[in-house]
């Protein structure tokens, strides 16, 4: 049973199940694996102490923050502007450090 299920996963990347439900050891595949789906480890925004806030007036839309973000939580919207996905942003501050125009400010989370 497992064999068939795993073969399908290997053959078609689109057929991968988003959440795999296993109930006991007999159902498990030989090894644990995970697929790169959004938020597979939970809402990591909870980890944040400092929050990156973008100043749209000075931002030149160069995209360096978008490239450097290690978690892919900076997204480009339809107008070409960059936004931070605060549900998953861990607040590492790399975007603020790399921004050439200093348009990203790290603000302490208020805890509200």
């Amino acid at each position, binding site marked *: 049973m497992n064999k068939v299920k795993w073969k399908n996963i290997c053959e078609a*990347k689109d057929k991968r199940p988003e959440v795999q439900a296993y109930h006991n050891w007999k159902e498990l595949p030989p090894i644990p694996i995970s697929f790169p789906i959004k938020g597979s480890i939970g809402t990591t925004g909870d980890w944040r102490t400092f929050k990156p806030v973008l100043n749209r007036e000075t931002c030149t839309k160069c995209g360096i923050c978008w490239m450097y973000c290690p978690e892919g939580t900076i997204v480009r919207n339809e107008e070409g502007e960059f936004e931070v996905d605060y549900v998953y942003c861990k607040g590492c501050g790399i975007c603020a450090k790399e921004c050439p125009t200093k348009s990203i400010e790290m603000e302490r989370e208020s805890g509200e």
Partner: protein
Amino acid sequence: MIDSQDDFIQERETKIIKGNEAAAYAAKSARVQVISAYPITPQTTVVEKLSEFVDNGEMPGTEYIKVESEHSVMASIVGASTAGTRTFTATSGQGLFYMYEMVHWAAGARLPIVTTIASRGPAPPWNIWADFTDIISCRDTGWMISFAANHQEIYDDILMSYKICEDYDILLPKFVAYGGFTLSHTSKPVTIEDQEVVDNFLPPLPDEKGWPHIFLDPERPMMHGNLIMPSGFYNEFRLKIHHTMLMAKDKIKKVTKEFESTFGRHYGNGLIQEYRINDADVAIINYGELAMQMEQAVDDLREEGYKVGSVKLRYLRPFPVEDIINVARKVKILGVADRATAFGSPTGGPVSSEVKTALYNSSVSTQVLPIIMGLGGREVSLEQQKNQLKALIKLKETGELPRDMIDGTFWDGLLEVE
């Protein structure tokens, strides 16, 4: 990698070669796709021979990776196997110990890697000669472990290993161990089988889809070897390795039978090979090359009228519990000869401890006599093995234990200098 259009085809041929070369020829016959290696005595000539094959274009399509240490050997083999290739490497003693971290990784990732070990004694005192303590230190890694007792068996067992390991229900790595120098550097006739017959015997090489449970492909990204929190399925994944190992016993027996019908060479039931044991009063279990010499000792003593037999243990992991119980049922006293140590264990010998465990609660009351001999390459002569059998007979008839019984174990051949 050499791009050769003309695939080199091996025809059936009997060659007089060293044990290490037999291992290299087996890897060639199995068409391994990735070899990663670092030399260490007494294994060096395995990978020397393989590099020669690759260089001569006799192994087209094989990638030979030179690395700086045994740790990197297994790390690169793990990577190559994860990508979906048939892989091979070889090491010995201290090299195996340096590889140890990645040895666990290979089993945990369920990669069907085959590795040969030309066993040598661990240091200090510095030693490079036959002693199985190195491979037995990998007993609990999740790798299957088998012993080859002669040159032909090295070749044959490596071929069988790929068929066992790559079964989709098994998917575990395997060691094939044989004595350093006693087999690795001595020469005997070995039949190298016809490539086409070997190709038909082995499962097809993995294609671009790789193994069914793991793959490396940018088009199909995935993460493996993930962290599992204590509340997650860690226990269950470990249980699966143990359960699979026990299920592999049937697979090993089946493959050994298939091997026999294809190539005509007999290896008992796969897990053990009994020799003249059915009407024997006493028998000794050996593993590795000393099991072959023991068969000669049995023959000699049978001519003198003694009812003796011997057993060649082929697998340490999975351990053939049921077969050992059956053997013990047939004899009155069962000797277990270890060319390895398990310090502080019930008997001091790793296999004799296993045998005793196997017999506990089995309703068999056969006396087990643990024997330790030949450590670090110390010669164990035919005469010595005959005397071991005679000591067992004496124990059966008079109840008198051998002279060198120390803490319940017969340490045979201790030096006494005048």
